[in-house]
């Protein structure tokens, strides 16, 4: 018992020393999870289905921005204004590639089944098939190695937060993540398009009777989720490189985050992503790195035991 006690006191002491750096790193990771989780949660909101091809939307954004960055930066050192421009272009191109792939998946793997009123299981298998097709295609076309992406900026520490150095890439991730999540939240809650999405999420049949174009609304939902997923692929690639399997684990984590926050709930996806990122990061101070996922998923189970519908509940319409 004393050994157990001393284990935790020593690890709390470690945590006290490293808390702020781990928190900053966890938040940066969490924003990436949140951006990917949005894609899952929006599709679930309108279709009540999990888009298992979303991991490849993430991967597509990573590769598109990787090729763009490689072409733009080459072996040179960009000036300050070029750095800003290249990051914006990287986010946009990553996002657009993600949106294009998401739209393609919707058009090929979902819409034909929806028109035939296929059972839910058919959508699931169709999406998994699309996922396997896409990542194997990427492996064949781009190779099976991890490509390091040279950032178009020097990733130095910009300032200290408590005792944690906050680096350029952390700031970019936080700013891009916040802007996109805030923008999407406003779009869904205030615009006509957002009303359509919420209407379809609440009751597609009634929405259709009220004049909402269901096909178009679903396609736009895929596009929006895909844009955020693709942009997240760029931010992830800047730090860890790009490879055809890069979407697998982050997307699984993002799906977890979406469930944690309340699947179908935009703000829930944000909270779930941030929570998961921070829990993962802090758990390193307590346990061996090999147990990070044990801790993360343990937290997921605990949260769901207390709140089966996730932290903020399920409804896209209500929360947005």
């Amino acid at each position, binding site marked *: 018992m004393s050994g157990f006690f001393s284990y935790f006191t020593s690890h709390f002491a470690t945590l006290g020393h490293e808390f702020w750096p*781990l928190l900053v790193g966890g938040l940066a990771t969490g924003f990436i999870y949140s951006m990917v989780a949005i894609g899952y949660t929006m599709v679930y909101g309108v279709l009540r289905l999990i888009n298992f091809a979303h991991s490849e939307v993430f991967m597509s954004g990573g590769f598109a921005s990787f090729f763009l960055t490689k072409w733009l930066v080459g072996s040179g050192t960009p000036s300050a204004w070029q750095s800003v421009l290249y990051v914006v272009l990287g986010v946009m191109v990553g996002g657009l590639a993600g949106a294009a792939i998401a739209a393609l998946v919707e058009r090929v793997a979902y819409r034909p089944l929806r028109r035939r009123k296929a059972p839910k299981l058919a959508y699931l298998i169709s999406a998994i098939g699309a996922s396997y097709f896409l990542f194997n295609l990427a492996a064949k076309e781009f190779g099976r190695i*991890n490509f390091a992406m040279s950032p178009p900026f020097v990733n130095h520490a910009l300032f200290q937060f408590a005792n944690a150095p906050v680096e350029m890439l952390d700031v970019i991730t936080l700013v891009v993540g916040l802007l996109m999540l805030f923008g999407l939240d406003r779009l869904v809650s205030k615009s006509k398009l957002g009303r359509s999405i919420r209407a379809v999420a609440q009751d597609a049949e009634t929405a259709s009777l009220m004049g909402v174009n269901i096909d178009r609304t679903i396609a736009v939902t895929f596009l929006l989720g895909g844009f955020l997923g693709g942009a997240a692929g760029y931010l992830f690639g800047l730090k860890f490189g790009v490879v055809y399997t890069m979407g697998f684990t982050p997307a699984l984590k993002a799906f977890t985050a979406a469930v944690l926050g309340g699947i179908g709930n935009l703000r829930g996806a944000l909270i779930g992503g941030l929570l998961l990122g921070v829990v993962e990061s802090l758990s390193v101070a307590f346990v061996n790195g090999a147990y990070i996922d044990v801790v993360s998923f343990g937290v997921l189970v605990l949260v769901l035991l207390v709140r089966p519908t996730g932290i903020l509940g399920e409804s896209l319409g209500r929360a947005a």
Partner: protein
Amino acid sequence: MKIRLNKTVAAVASSALVLLAVPASGIAGASTMMAKPTYVIGYEGPLSGGNAQLGINMKWGVQLAIANANASGKLPFNLQAAWYDDQGSGTLSPAQAQSAVANNKLVAMVGPAFSGATRAAEPFYANAGIATVSPSATAAALATGISNNNFMRVVYGDDVQGAADAKFLVKTHGASSVLTIDDGSFYGAGLAQVVNTAAKADGATVTSNSLPQTSNCGGVASSTEYTSAATQIAAANPKAVFYGGYYCDLGLLLGALSQTSYSGIIMSGDGSESSSLISGTTPASAANGVWLSAAGGGSSAFTGKLETQFKAISHGVKSSTALYSTQAYDAANMIITSMSKIKWSKSLELNRIAIKDQLHMTTYKGVTGTLKFQSNGNLAGSGAGQVNFYQVVSGVITAKGHN
């Protein structure tokens, strides 16, 4: 009518010529085939995936050995190579091993290349009586944990490499505290454990951590684990970090560490000794200063005509930067030498077993030294215990002597 007759004669004559020519060439081909049967030497290793470069280096070595053996004209058989891509994965290697076993011309294997893949594939090769001569599977347990005598390797085990690495860190560089990190693989965990034990014995304070292979590098863990792990390493600030694993994940860890204040020694073993370590690290400068080791035995490069031939196969890559290419060349040549000494039978299985038994009796003077196997498959060559050290200097892996 005359014209028609001429045409008929010409057609009959042509047909006769064709009929005569086909058996003639057929007989000639058959006589060549009978004189020189064709046998296949397989190679199993990662030819794709996050850590493919090491496997490709070895493929080049096998290609060179087989090309030279065929070109010599001295062998009573022709050789072909067959490639089995296991991506370095213990999950994929059994299927590749079964495919190799089913090849009815395949008589021996170079590889498997990675230790985890070797452990998973060995039962299939053992059942078929196929000798596997690995250029690079260094996990110590491979030689002690498998009862069948089909496993051999032309490198020293991680018990030799890990002990030398620990001594290098603690004694040579005075590292009083060492953090060992492994990638959770059979190879990485084994090597890190040897370093852990040896560094303690050498007087250092040792802690350990495990960071599983990530989905960027063929595993399933999230690459984000390195961000928080690097923070923790910087806070603990050990004098040295030893990484047991492969270059792809080490590159991610180095990238994360470069964003912290950590400035201690970083070292890894042969699994990280690849130029792809530098190209896979962001920023590439984060790899500078990293120490690497390889228990390859003797020379790790071809010279003269062999080097020219090697570069023709490797599209200009020098053998000195293609780790395990020379070991693969020697492994293939040990098999070819053994093949030239056995009495061939009509039974594929008996031929496979005869080659395996002959390998245990063969002493071969290769590029990497004089090679002979102990009964457990470990090397008993003249360069016993030699571990070469390297350091990344200005983006280039540079030889820095040996223990």
